C-alpha cells in the first residue's frame, strides 16, 4: 500500500490501542547515478526507497519500531513492537511527543534540476573523456561519476503536527590516477550543485591538475610543524569531531565540553555556527526529527562555548529550550543530536596564498585518511595519515605524503592562530554539511621519516 494509506492505518491502530502520544516519521528517497570507466558507461543505478518509523510513549517510556514494508500486518507489528520495546526501557529521561506551536521558516521544497538518465550518462562519459585530454599522464582506471538524489521526509504525531519537507541536489565527480615510475598517485574531486550548473571541463582540469601536482611526493622529517588545513580538511576535522558539541554526548561524559558553556574553550579566532538555512547549502531544513522549528545559532563565539546542540530530552535536562537539533541518522534510528550546516566562520587572514606568506614554514594539509578509526571524539585524540605540500619561505613548494599528524581536537581548537576569509562547504554527508576556511593550527606533532 502507499504511505498515505499506511499512515492512516497506523493512526487507526494507535488510537485503538489507546495510545495518547505517538509519532510516525517517514522518509522516501529517489536516486539515480552513473559511472564511466575505460571510455564506457560501466554502471548505472536507480533506486526508490521508503521507510517509516513509529514511536510512542507507553508507560512513560519511548519505544521505537520501523519498517520498509507497507502492509496491514507490518502496521500492526510496528505499533505492537514499539509498545513492547517501551516496556524493556529503564532510562528515566523525560520523553516527548512535541506539541509546540512553532512557526516554521518557509523554504522552498526540492527545486533543483532533475537530470534525465540520458543527461546523466552523457555527462559522465564526457567528463571521463576530458580527464585524459587534460594531462598526458592520466592513466586508464580513472573514472567519472554523477548522481542525483531527492529526499522527502514527513512527520505526523498525535499532537497535531503534520509536517513535510524535501530537498534535492546533484553531484558530479572524478577520480584520477596517474603513474610515474613505480608509483601510482590518485585523487578525486566531487561537486555538489544544481545539475544545470556543472562545468564539466573545469572539473576535469581541476581534478587532473590536483593529482599531477602530487607526483614525486615524499614523506617529511618527523617533528613539530605549523599546519595549514585546507578549507576542505578543516571542515573534515569538524565533521569528525562534531559530536563533541552534542549535549547528548556531553551528558553521557562522551564529550569534554560537558558543563563548559560560557567558558573559553578555543582560540579567540574561532566562531562556529550551525545554520539550517545556510545560503549556499543544498541542505535547508525547517524542522528537526521531533518537529521542533530549526534556527541559526552560534555554538562557539570568539573561542567561548555559547551552547551545545540540544534535542527536547537534553534541553529539558539542562532546563533550556531545544536548539532544534533533535535529528535522526536514518528514519529508523532513535532521535539523537546532529547539526545542519556546521561551519567555522571565516576570519580575516585572507586567501590561502596570503596565509602561506604569513606562516612562512609549515605543511599545507590537503588530504586526511582513516578518520573513522584514527580519530576519537570521546577523547579528542587523533592520529591521522595525511598528504599535502610543504610551505617554505611563504610559498607552497613540494608535495608530501606518508606522514601522520597527531594531537587532540580540544587542544587543536586552542592552537588555531589564523582563520582565512574563504569559507567553503564540503559535500553533504547524511543530511549534514560541514564547512570551514583555510585554517592554521600551530605546533602539531608530525611523524614521517
Amino acid at each position, binding site marked *: 500500500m502507499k504511505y498515505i494509506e499506511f499512515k492512516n492505518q497506523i493512526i487507526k491502530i494507535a488510537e485503538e490501542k489507546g495510545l495518547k502520544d505517538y509519532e510516525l516519521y517517514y522518509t522516501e528517497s529517489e536516486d539515480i547515478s552513473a559511472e564511466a*570507466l*575505460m571510455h*564506457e*558507461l560501466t*554502471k*548505472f*543505478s*536507480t*533506486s*526508490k*526507497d*521508503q521507510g517509516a518509523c513509529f514511536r510512542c510513549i507507553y508507560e512513560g517510556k519511548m519505544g*521505537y*519500531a*520501523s*519498517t*520498509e*514494508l*507497507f502492509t496491514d500486518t*507490518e502496521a500492526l507489528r*510496528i505499533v505492537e513492537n514499539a509498545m513492547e*520495546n*517501551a516496556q*524493556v*526501557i*529503564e*532510562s528515566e*529521561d523525560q520523553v516527548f511527543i512535541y506539541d509546540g506551536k512553532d512557526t516554521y521558516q518557509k523554504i522552498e521544497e526540492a527545486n533543483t534540476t532533475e537530470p534525465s*538518465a540520458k543527461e546523466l550518462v552523457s555527462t559522465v562519459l564526457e567528463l571521463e573523456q576530458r580527464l585524459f585530454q587534460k594531462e598526458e599522464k592520466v592513466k*586508464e*582506471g580513472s573514472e567519472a561519476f554523477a548522481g542525483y538524489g531527492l529526499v522527502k521526509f514527513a512527520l505526523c504525531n498525535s499532537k497535531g503536527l503534520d509536517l513535510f519537507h524535501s530537498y534535492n541536489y546533484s553531484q558530479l565527480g572524478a577520480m584520477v*590516477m596517474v603513474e610515474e615510475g613505480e608509483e601510482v598517485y*590518485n585523487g578525486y574531486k566531487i561537486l555538489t550543485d544544481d545539475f544545470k550548473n556543472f562545468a564539466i571541463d573545469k572539473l576535469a582540469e581541476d581534478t587532473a591538475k590536483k593529482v599531477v601536482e602530487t607526483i614525486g611526493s615524499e614523506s617529511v622529517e*618527523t617533528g613539530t610543524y605549523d599546519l595549514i588545513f585546507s578549507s576542505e580538511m578543516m571542515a573534515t576535522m569538524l565533521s569528525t569531531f562534531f559530536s563533541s558539541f552534542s549535549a547528548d554526548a556531553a551528558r*553521557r*561524559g562522551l564529550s*569534554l565540553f560537558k558543563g563548559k558553556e560560557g567558558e573559553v574553550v578555543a582560540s579567540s579566532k574561532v566562531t562556529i555556527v550551525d545554520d539550517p538555512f545556510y545560503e549556499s547549502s543544498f541542505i535547508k531544513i525547517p524542522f528537526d526529527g521531533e518537529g521542533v522549528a530549526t534556527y541559526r545559532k552560534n555554538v562557539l563565539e570568539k573561542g567561548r562555548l555559547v551552547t551545545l546542540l540540544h534535542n527536547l530530552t537534553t534541553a529539558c535536562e539542562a532546563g533550556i529550550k531545544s536548539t532544534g537539533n533533535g535529528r535522526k541518522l536514518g528514519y*529508523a534510528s532513535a532521535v539523537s543530536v546532529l547539526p545542519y550546516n556546521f561551519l567555522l566562520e571565516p576570519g580575516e587572514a585572507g586567501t590561502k596564498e596570503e596565509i602561506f606568506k604569513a606562516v612562512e614554514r609549515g605543511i599545507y594539509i590537503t588530504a586526511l*585518511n*582513516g578518520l*573513522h*578509526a*584514527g580519530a*576519537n571524539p*570521546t*577523547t*579528542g585524540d587523533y*592520529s591521522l*595519515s595525511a598528504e599535502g605540500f610543504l610551505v617554505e619561505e611563504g610559498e607552497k613548494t613540494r608535495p608530501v*605524503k*606518508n*606522514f*601522520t*599528524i*597527531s594531537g587532540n581536537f580540544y587542544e587543536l581548537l586552542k592552537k588555531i592562530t589564523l582563520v582565512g576569509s574563504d569559507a567553503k562547504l564540503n559535500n553533504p554527508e547524511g543530511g549534514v554539511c560541514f564547512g570551514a576556511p583555510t585554517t592554521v593550527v600551530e605546533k602539531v*606533532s*608530525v*611523524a*614521517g*621519516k
Partner: protein
Amino acid sequence: MISTVILKEVLHKALSTGADFAEVFVENTKENVINMIDSKIQSVNDRVISGVGIRIFKGTRCVSGSTSSMEREDLLACAAKVAGAMEGLPEGKEIVLRERIFGDIHPIILVPSTVDKGYKAELLKRGYFAAKDYHKDIVQVSANLLDVDHNILIANSEGLLTSDRQIRTRMTINAIAAKNGENQTGSCSPGRRMGLELFDEIDPRDIGEEAARQAITMINAGYIKGGKMPVAIENGFGGVIFHEACGHSLEASAVAIGQSQFAGKLGQQIASTKVTAIDDGTIPNAWGSINVDDEGNPSQRKVLIENGILKEYMIDNFNGRRMGKNGNGSCRRQSYQYAPTSRMTNTFIDNGTDNNEEIIKSIEYGLYAKKMGGGSVNPATGSFNFVVTEGYIVRNGEIKEAVRGASLIGKGSDILMDIDMVGQNLERGQGMCGSSSGSIPTDVGQPLLRVSSITVGGR
C-alpha cells in the same frame, strides 16, 4: 517472499532491452538492537529492512536498481527503469528457474527473534556492569546487543533460484575511563553467525571486563613518540593490517579495472615467504561466513597468498567478466539498496613457524600493538593507515610501558614484504567492513607477527 511467476516476469522485463543477464535479489531482514548507557536500558529498536535489487549486465556494463516495495507493479516498474538504461532488443531467452539448495553449515540453537527481550536485556546488563564495576575510573559504559535475521533470495536469467538465511548476534561494549580531565576508551565487540548461544561460548562479563581493562590501561599511558620502528602486531583484530593493506586490493572490483597495485601479479611474489593468507567464507558460525554469496554462488575457502606468492583474487561474476574468470563466492552487499561487488568474508594470515616469545625478544626498540582499531586503504596506491588502540613500547626484547596515540601508516606492497616473523597463535576478530556495496560483517585474523620497519604516528 515473491512468487516464481513474478520473479520470471521481472527477469524478462529486465532483459527487454538486450541485456545478456538479469538478476533479482530479494531481502527481508529483521534487526533488533538494545542499547544501554548510564547503567540503564536506553533504547530498544526493531527494524524490518525489506526490498528488491535488480541488476542487468551487457558485456562489461552493469545497470542496477532497487525498490523497497514488494508489489508486482513496483517491481516491474523498477525492472523497466533498469532496462531503460540499455538500448537494444531482447535476445528472447527462455528462463527456467530451478531451485538450488546449497545447505546450511551454520547451526543456530537459539534464534534471537524467538527469545524474550527481557532475557536479552539481562545478557547485556551482565556485560555492562562487568565493565562499569571494573575500576573506579570507569566513568561511563555504553553497550549494545544486536541480532540480525537476514533472509535473501536470488533468481537470475540463467535459471538460478536459491536462498539463504543468515542469523548473526553481536555484543559491543565501550568503556570510558576519565582522569585529570582526560578521557580514554576501550572496547570489545565479539560477534558470530549464531543465535544467543553465542553467550554460552563467550561470557558477557568477559566482554565488559576486556573493554574496561583497555580503557584503564590507556588512561594511565603516556604518548608514543612517532617515527620508523619495528612493530609486533598481536593476533585477532591485528589482522586488520592484512585486511586493509592487502585484502581490499585483492578484490576484483579494484583488480579488474587496474585500480589495484596487485593487478596482473598472479603467480608473482607479493609478500615475504613467511606470509600465507586465506579468505574463507565457509568457517562454521564465523561472523563473516555465508552459505551462498549475494549472487547465489556457494561460499569458498580461497588461498590468496601462499608463501608470499599471489594465488587468487576475490571475484564476483560482474568484475569476473573483465578478468575472464568466474565469481568465487565473494560477491556481497549490505542490503538490496546496494549494488553488490567483490568483498572479503573471513580473511586472515595463517599460522607461521616463528616462536611468539622470540618475536618480542627480537625487538631492541619498537612497538607491541596488542589491540588494533580500524583503518582504511586507498586500493589504487596501496596507502593504508590504521590505529593502535592498545600499544606498548618494547625495549631490549621486553614489553614495557603502555602508550597512547599510535597509528601505523605505509603502503600495502611494502608492508607485505616487511613481515619477517609470523607466530603461531592464529585468532580472528570481528569487524564491519565498509566499501561501495555497504557495510558487511567480516572477520580479520592473524597470529602474532613482526613487521621489520613501519612508520608509527605519534607525538
